[in-house]
């Protein structure tokens, strides 16, 4: 029966993929993409993940998990598999898989779609499941601890520094996305601002009024936020109120920076925790709604399979399809950040080793499907409209006439009337040069929702989509700044012990300020960059995220070589590692060494410096040029640093593996010894009943 199901899946999936291949010359329906991807995920889950679980990691349902052995009713709690799946998916699913695919759509729908499907099934899902498995066998240790235990202090330190850096770049780039979405849009700005008092209200409700009543409080919060979307529309109609929420990018960046700093030092119950409940419900609800709408409407994809920009001349960001599609789409295909979640909270919840496949591999496959929906939402737009929204004025020309002329000249016709009508429909004054991916995704989502649930509300759908992205980007900014703060305090604790105390207020203030200053700097530079900033910051984020994935896969490969009964199985993580190391290194090489000023960081800095010296820049560009020049050089050196960290870990991993293969001594595996489980399976509707059984 199972085999029959597999064969059926393979036939349908093959048919859909064949459909995609054959329809290359004409518009293709998005259903082909959805069906093909779902079939591939199910096949990967049913066969590849099952094979890895049973052969490589020797999943043993009779072995007690840390949740059972160390059950303390708090962080170590045996949890029903679907509940743990829900927790894990909510934790890994962020705004990343919505932004990356939108940007990568400049290459056409095919490269991004294929990388999302193949990258997740063979790379991302495997990485997540592996990290979950290894951490679970080691009492829920973190990636950094495992790197130290299994490779040595060098690997451990590299993982720590890598994590801290990626956090800073990630927050900056997400901050830039949300700033660009609110820029000169009173409706979006007022709606996003309104979510802050709503979150505080929900925080008070959950803490004092009705402690711990999560669902009640969230329902009230979500209702208020939905109202604030309409409220923003009303504000947009009032000339005086409207002016109060009309800000340029620099002011909005200032708001985000102050907000992030406050959120990092305020108690979690006040802002962070309630905001997270709201953003999780909104996120899951919206993704579910989007899936339904895509299924009902199954829109035509208007973007060609591949555009001429695969040659590296793309206007959103420069660089050839190889390696840059693999850098641009990190979350949704392979995301190193997931290794931190998979080796933290989740392994302490798993009640049986069998569940690792569903929770690790399954959650990532679902996240990958979210990325597929994002690429559909980006490519169902007229390509001309897509480029008009996503390309900065510095590249296509500052006026609408210049922009439509340039974009039509690329072979993607678009008119100013069309853009004006679209902006009017969406309740915005203009949609030109709204870089960062959020506005174009919101236009895509609004058109899908609008055609499914009523076109009259297009502008409301648009601002709902903007608000939805902003809400969980702000959650990531809060949570990320806080985690960065803890990591920095941990590091500073080595210099001076009091600085390492996470509750000592001077240390809290100093470390939070340092972290916020770090990402605030990149955010500010991104905002003043006339080309939109995303074109510089997003590749840096992609490189750092893939570097973290490579660190996680290095640790995994070393552990497989050390412990698996067949060393040859190391290819399971070794192959994605080799691929990621290749794309990351090639991309980093081009970003550092290229003489094309649009591609190479140093070439870009030198080019701008020469123009500045020759007086060839306009006054406003000349004013910000020194900062942009410094920033490009800094980005260049950061890329060099990421690459060095990456290769340090890979070499350290190779050293450990070679010693093991030659029979020399290596660090002992830190796997916890086998103990038989006494746990009964937890039923699906596990309320009190399941946990009472699980208690020790």
């Amino acid at each position: 029966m199972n085999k029959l199901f597999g064969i059926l899946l393979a036939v349908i999936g093959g048919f859909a993929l064949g459909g995609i291949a054959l329809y290359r010359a004409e518009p293709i329906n998005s259903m082909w993409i959805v069906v093909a991807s779902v079939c591939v995920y199910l096949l990967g889950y049913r066969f590849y993940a099952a094979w890895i679980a049973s052969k490589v990691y020797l999943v043993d349902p009779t072995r007690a998990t840390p949740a059972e052995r160390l059950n303390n009713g708090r962080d170590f709690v045996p949890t029903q598999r679907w509940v743990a799946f829900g927790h894990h998916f909510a934790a890994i699913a962020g705004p990343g898989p919505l932004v990356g695919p939108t940007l990568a759509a400049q290459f056409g729908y095919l490269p991004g779609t294929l990388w999302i499907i193949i990258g997740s099934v063979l790379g991302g899902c495997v990485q997540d499941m592996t990290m979950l498995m290894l951490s679970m066998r080691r009492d829920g240790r973190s990636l950094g601890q495992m790197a130290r235990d299994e490779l040595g202090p060098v690997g451990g330190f590299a993982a720590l520094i890598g994590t801290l850096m990626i956090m800073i770049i990630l927050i900056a780039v997400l901050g830039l996305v949300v700033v660009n979405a609110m820029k000169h849009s009173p409706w979006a700005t007022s709606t996003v601002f309104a979510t802050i008092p709503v979150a505080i209200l929900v925080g008070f409700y959950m803490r004092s009024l009705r402690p711990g009543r999560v669902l009640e409080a969230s329902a009230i919060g979500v209702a208020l936020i939905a109202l604030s979307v309409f409220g923003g529309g009303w504000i947009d109609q009032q000339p005086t109120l409207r002016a109060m929420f009309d800000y340029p990018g620099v002011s909005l960046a200032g708001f985000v920076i102050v907000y992030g700093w406050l959120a990092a030092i305020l108690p979690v119950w006040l802002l962070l925790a309630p905001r997270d409940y709201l953003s999780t419900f909104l996120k899951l609800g919206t993704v579910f709604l989007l899936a339904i709408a895509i299924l009902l409407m199954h829109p035509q994809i208007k973007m060609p399979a591949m555009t001429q920009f695969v040659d590296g001349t793309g206007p959103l960001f420069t660089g050839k399809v190889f390696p840059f599609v693999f850098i641009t789409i990190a979350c949704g295909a392979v995301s190193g950040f997931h290794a931190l979640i998979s080796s933290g909270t989740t392994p302490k919840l798993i009640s049986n080793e069998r569940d690792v496949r569903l929770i690790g591999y399954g959650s990532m496959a679902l996240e990958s499907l979210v990325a597929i929906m994002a690429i559909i939402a980006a490519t169902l737009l007229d390509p001309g409209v897509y480029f008009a929204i996503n390309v900065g004025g510095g590249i296509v020309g500052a006026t609408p006439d210049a922009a439509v002329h340039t974009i039509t000249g690329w072979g993607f016709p678009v008119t100013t009337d069309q853009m004006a009508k679209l902006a009017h429909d969406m309740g915005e004054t203009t949609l030109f040069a709204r870089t960062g991916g959020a506005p174009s995704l919101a236009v895509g989502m609004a058109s899908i929702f609008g055609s499914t649930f009523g076109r009259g509300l297009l502008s409301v759908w648009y601002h709902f989509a903007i608000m939805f992205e902003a809400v969980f980007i702000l959650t990531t900014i809060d949570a990320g700044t806080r985690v960065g703060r803890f990591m920095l305090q941990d590091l500073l604790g080595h210099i001076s012990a009091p600085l390492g105390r996470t509750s000592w207020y001077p240390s809290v203030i100093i470390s939070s300020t340092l972290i916020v200053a770090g990402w605030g700097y990149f955010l500010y530079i991104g905002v003043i960059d006339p080309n939109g900033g995303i074109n510089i910051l997003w590749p840096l984020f992609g490189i750092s995220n893939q570097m973290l994935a490579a660190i996680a896969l290095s640790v995994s490969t070393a552990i497989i070589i050390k412990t698996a009964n067949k060393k040859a199985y190391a290819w399971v993580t070794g192959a994605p590692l080799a691929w990621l190391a290749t794309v990351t290194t090639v991309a980093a090489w081009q970003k550092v060494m290229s003489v094309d000023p649009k591609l190479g960081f140093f070439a870009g800095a030198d080019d701008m410096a020469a123009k500045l010296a020759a007086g060839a820049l306009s006054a406003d560009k000349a004013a910000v040029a020194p900062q942009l020049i410094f920033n490009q050089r800094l980005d260049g050196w950061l890329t060099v640093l990421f690459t060095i960290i990456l290769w340090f870990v890979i070499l350290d991993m190779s050293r450990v593996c070679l010693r093991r293969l030659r029979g020399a001594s290596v660090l002992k595996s830190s796997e916890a010894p086998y103990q038989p489980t006494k746990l009964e399976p937890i039923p699906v509707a596990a309320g009190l009943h399941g946990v009472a059984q699980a208690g020790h």
Partner: protein
Amino acid sequence: MSGEGIYSARTAALRWFAAGWSYLRTVSGDNAYERYLAHHATAHAGEPPMSRKDYFTEMQRRKWSGVSRCC
């Protein structure tokens, strides 16, 4: 359709709804305190458990002292 058939269909629907509701409460943490009390009663019988408010504050503090949200 016989009365019995309608009755069992309604029971099944109610059971599904109850399972869904229970899942939602568990996954969101809405019934976390009840689960803590149940655990406490078996594992630490005799000691007084934390109050609802204390438990909830402690749970949030622990949740947000590590990496719990991703990009």
